[in-house]
């Protein structure tokens, strides 16, 4: 802690005021034990002693505690909120870790070793060795159906999941199709029913057989769960209403991508709108790539 490392961020001077990554070592150990159990039982919700964090419930306290417990001095952290690195929350959390852990931070998915996310999975394919930490509001997929914790735990233990399909049945009845478009329930490793947090269902296929380690933290509800690398994750559906991801008629207005999740942005008061990639890093990378291709082939028309 005394030597200045040129890899540390500029806030290194203040890291002496905090234990590394804010949490005390005992807490981190407790969280890691929960994480180990979670990884050993993919999709199973492990209760943990969630601590009071310097931000309110509902702002990512679970994700922060998981990140704080796994991050080390040599890690590089990326934080995204709805896919963007530059929203207030993403910036705050990134600064929090820079300050309390003095670790390197980045906006580039490929450069990160730990990625904390709210409500999106990055478009860029993740690699082995990377850790994706999800912020989870409500971990229990059966809560809508059954208010009693004692009962939902039994249902998980006895694999009584058929009733989850009741929810999807109701969707089809009311809307003609399964209308759940985010936080879409999945079965992990052919065993546990899991809520992937409010990521769009568009991202669900990315969870399946992902080389990265996926960790989920719910601070208010005090639960941790995990999907180890290369684990089967299957979204629920009916035989005659199979799982489908969202599609757009438009491509990204900035990078022309046809296969990323697009946000709709209102541009003026006349109802003008454009569609842009929600994953800012992915979008910028594509633009940069296209620029490089343009400069190396000056005679070609721009894409």
């Amino acid at each position, binding site marked *: 802690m005394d030597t200045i490392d040129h890899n540390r961020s500029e806030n290194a001077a203040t890291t002496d005021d905090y234990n590394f990554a804010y949490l005390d070592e005992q807490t981190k150990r407790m969280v890691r034990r929960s994480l180990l159990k979670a990884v050993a039982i993919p999709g199973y919700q492990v209760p943990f002693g969630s601590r009071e964090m310097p931000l309110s419930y509902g702002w990512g306290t679970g994700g922060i505690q998981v990140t704080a417990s796994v991050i080390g001095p040599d890690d590089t952290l990326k934080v995204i909120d709805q896919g963007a690195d530059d929203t207030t929350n993403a910036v705050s959390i990134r600064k929090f870790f820079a300050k309390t852990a003095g670790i390197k931070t980045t906006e580039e998915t490929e450069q990160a070793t730990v990625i904390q996310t709210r409500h999106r999975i990055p478009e860029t394919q993740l690699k082995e060795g990377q850790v994706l930490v999800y912020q989870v509001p409500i971990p229990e997929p059966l809560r809508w159906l059954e208010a009693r914790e004692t009962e939902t735990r039994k249902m998980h233990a006895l694999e009584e999941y058929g009733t989850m399909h*009741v929810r999807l*049945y109701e969707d089809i009845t009311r809307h003609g199709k399964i209308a759940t478009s985010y936080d879409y329930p999945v079965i992990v490793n052919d065993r546990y029913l899991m809520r992937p947090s409010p990521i769009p269902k568009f991202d669900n296929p990315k969870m399946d057989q992902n080389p990265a380690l996926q960790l989920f933290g719910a601070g208010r509800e005090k639960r941790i769960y995990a999907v180890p690398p290369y684990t089967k994750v299957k979204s629920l559906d*009916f*035989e005659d209403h199979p799982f489908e991801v969202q599609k757009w008629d438009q491509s990204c207005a900035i990078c022309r991508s046809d296969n990323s999740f697009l946000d709709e942005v209102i541009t003026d008061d006349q109802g003008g709108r454009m569609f842009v990639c929600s994953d800012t890093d992915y979008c910028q990378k594509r633009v940069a790539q296209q620029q490089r291709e343009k400069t190396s082939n000056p005679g070609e028309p721009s894409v």
Partner: protein
Amino acid sequence: MNQSHEAPLLTADNVTRYYGEHVGCRGVSFDLWPGEVIGIVGESGSGKTTLLNCTSGRLPPVSGTVQFATRAEGLSDIYEMSEAERRMLMRTDWGFVHQNPRDGLRMAVSAGANIGERLMAIGDRHYGDIRRTAGDWLGKVEFNIDRIDDMPSTFSGGMQQRLQIARNLVTKPRLVFMDEPTGGLDVSVQARLLDLLRVLVDELGLSAILVTHDLAVARLITHRLMVMRRGEVVESGLTDQVLDDPQHPYTQLLVSSILQV
């Protein structure tokens, strides 16, 4: 007897349940055979609901056993089996019709989903088939099929009760437990519901254990009757015989107390 090689569907042997010092039920034994409806009648505090709960796996007796002829393994003690097995039984081979239909329905989902739930719980995954089966069952309980997508809170008590029955029968259970199924309903609605139950029991070959305080209900749909008083069975036998030729003083009192219309 061509029935002698059949085995009982459910056997209760010396079932006893106390609530502290207070007797819930004591020393109750009976056999239930396939296709039979047994009524348990008694006044408040007689122990009939306790007995129903003990025999339906909801309340373990302090002594005595309850055995059910499971499809897979024959006669099994329902309290010796694992919780998973018992819960599976309750979802498939057994039904339970509550007095208040709200206790037996999911009020937050449509009629069709209520019926389809048991099917989905046993692994049915074809929306069209599930919906069709739900519709068939609504027809069987004389429910307007146009209301398959409506919420139970929009139905009358009689309709809710019929929905509860359909929800229970969709997995073709062999045994249905009923706790005062017509208790909270208007008299005219009761009559229709009882007749529906009578027909369904006949057509589907159901066995049932039905708790009621109303002797007229017992006469209408039960084959055998057990009269309970202060936790004990004081008389049992064919329903019409118990009601027309009661032997025990308490039964005689009960029968003679019915007002004639």
